[in-house]
């Protein structure tokens, strides 16, 4: 009986992920089309599609949790799904409050990429029993470490996205070349604030994630730990230099984009 339930769940999570990916693709295509047509107002339809994509992503994670009976972060493709989820969550929370509706246009391709890679992984994985076997022991510290670190990566990814938007907007303003994108991007002051806050949120969460790793039953590999510490250190240095006016907004934006390669590297070696 339990095995039959697992098989149903095992199929449904993939269907939900496919629907979610299609929704994000639809939202991205709609936004790009809107940009090309010059529409520069928030679209409820687009928000609805993005919301649906996020809801199906939540459902996917829920079903994966049912299979594992724990937080579903046991493989690279699940990690990518979780990362997409955290970016989606931050987009809905921060995107609206900072009036960065266009963040979705920049976030969607990254989420799409993560989900497409995850989909390939999902369809190549073994039976539910084989998957469950890998995760028969639950370590609370591991759960905390993995989940909080991934949400922090989501915040840092969005900081990179905000950084990219800042650089585009700054370039257009400096060169007096006000193209279609200019009218759709948020005010540069909002981007500066969002960038700083997202990095600060990311650093706070990463600190908790990195610290919790020290209490895990099986301490992560030294390279994993070392990279996490290095990432944290570099982001802290970036924030301190910025706060002390040693670097300006451009360097902060460039730093936010470049430093995100470190979390990606950590995910790759996971």
């Amino acid at each position, binding site marked *: 009986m339990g095995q039959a339930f697992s098989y149903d769940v095992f199929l449904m999570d993939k269907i939900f992920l496919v629907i979610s990916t299609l929704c994000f693709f639809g939202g991205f295509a709609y936004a790009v089309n809107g940009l090309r*047509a*010059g*529409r*520069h*107002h928030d679209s409820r339809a687009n928000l609805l599609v993005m919301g649906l994509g996020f809801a199906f992503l939540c459902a996917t994670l829920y079903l994966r949790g049912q299979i594992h009976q724990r937080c579903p972060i046991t493989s690279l493709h699940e990690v990518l799904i979780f990362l997409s989820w955290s970016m989606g969550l931050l987009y809905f929370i921060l995107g609206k409050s900072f*009036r960065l509706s266009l963040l979705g246009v920049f976030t969607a391709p990254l989420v799409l990429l993560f989900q497409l890679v995850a989909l390939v992984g999902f369809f190549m994985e073994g039976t539910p029993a084989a998957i469950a076997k890998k995760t028969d022991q639950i370590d609370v510290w591991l759960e905390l470490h993995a989940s909080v670190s991934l949400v922090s990566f989501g915040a840092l990814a969005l900081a990179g996205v905000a950084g990219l938007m800042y650089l585009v*907007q700054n370039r257009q*303003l*400096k060169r*007096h070349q*006000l193209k279609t994108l*200019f*009218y759709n*991007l*948020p*005010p*540069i*002051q*909002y981007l*500066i604030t969002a960038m700083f806050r997202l990095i600060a949120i990311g650093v706070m969460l990463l600190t908790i994630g990195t610290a919790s790793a020290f209490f895990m039953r099986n301490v992560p590999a030294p390279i994993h730990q070392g990279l996490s510490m290095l990432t944290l250190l570099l982001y802290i240095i970036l924030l301190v230099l*910025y706060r002390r*006016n040693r670097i*300006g*907004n*451009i360097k*902060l934006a460039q730093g936010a984009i470049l430093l995100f390669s470190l979390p990606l590297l950590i995910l790759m070696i996971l």
Partner: protein
Amino acid sequence: MNILCLGVNHESAPVEIRERMAFAHKNLASSLHDIQALDEIDEVVVLSTCNRVEIYAACKKIENGFDVIRDYLDQHFQMQTGETVDFYKLHNHAAARHLFSVAGGLDSMVLGETEIFGQVKKAYADAQNAGATSRALNKLFQQSFTAGKLIRTNTQLTRGASSVGSVAVDLAEKIFGDLSKCRVMLIGAGDMSRRTAKSLHSRGAKSIIVSNRSYDNAVKLAQEMDGKAIHFDDWSDSLNEVDIIVSSTAATHHVIHAEMIQSAMPQRGHQPLFVIDIAVPRDVDPAVGDIENVYLYDIGALEGIAAQTRHERKKQVAHCEQVLDQFIEEKGIDALAPAQSGPPTQSPSQQQKCDASSKSTSALPES
């Protein structure tokens, strides 16, 4: 029921004619009643702005409708014998389409301006309040509001700013977002800086500092803007306190140098600074624009953006026409305002292209 439109606009009549034919708002209700009381006329809306005077009416017979309104205008505005006015005369489908173009800003002197939309709404509300509209014009004007909104949201006709002052304000909003927390400093109290400051003030900028060689003029302008005046020698001390600088002095050399801005920037943290140089010759050293977080726009750059906007808007006209065609097809305007059965009428813009002999010129009665 037929719908007609008789009018003049900035293309068909000089300002002398338009100002003579303008309806005073205080007498509008009685004028509406007078027109509605004319033979054949059942409903009427008068759209009277500085760029156009148009009378929309619902009537039983088109030609009679045009004639009685023209006679009324002649009498009402006391036109002299022999005076001619180039009225455009549109009816049914053409009249409806023209109204939609007007509401969408397609027929405006500044293409894509949005003020006209409010003016059409007001003209309709005035007529409605005077009891001069009924089913035909109610429906037509409601449709025109939908058409106007459609053009605004589905095309780029209203995008960007087409004058120097509005470009500056748009840029300020793209840099700071909410202008209510922005502090503005005017260096020079000339007409251009006064207008730009008023635009910024109208969008929320509250804290305005005015510095001028003539301190009295600075005080005068500062009072207008609820700001404060400072002596011309002191303006550089306030550099780190302001977010927007508008400079328009009559100096023949640079007044704001890169070193001055550079030294003020560290005290501003990471706050951007927007410098608007509307003086000719320029007040601001172009090297100021190279400083991080400083966005420098001189009069040439502002005019360039305004011209680009106007050019882009012109390119949008064909697309807007398509949007209107589609709207008319979908809404079945023909049922409301049936296709013309009499001689073809021309839109005001089409009329402009015709030679004088083919114009729908209406000579006011000679005797």
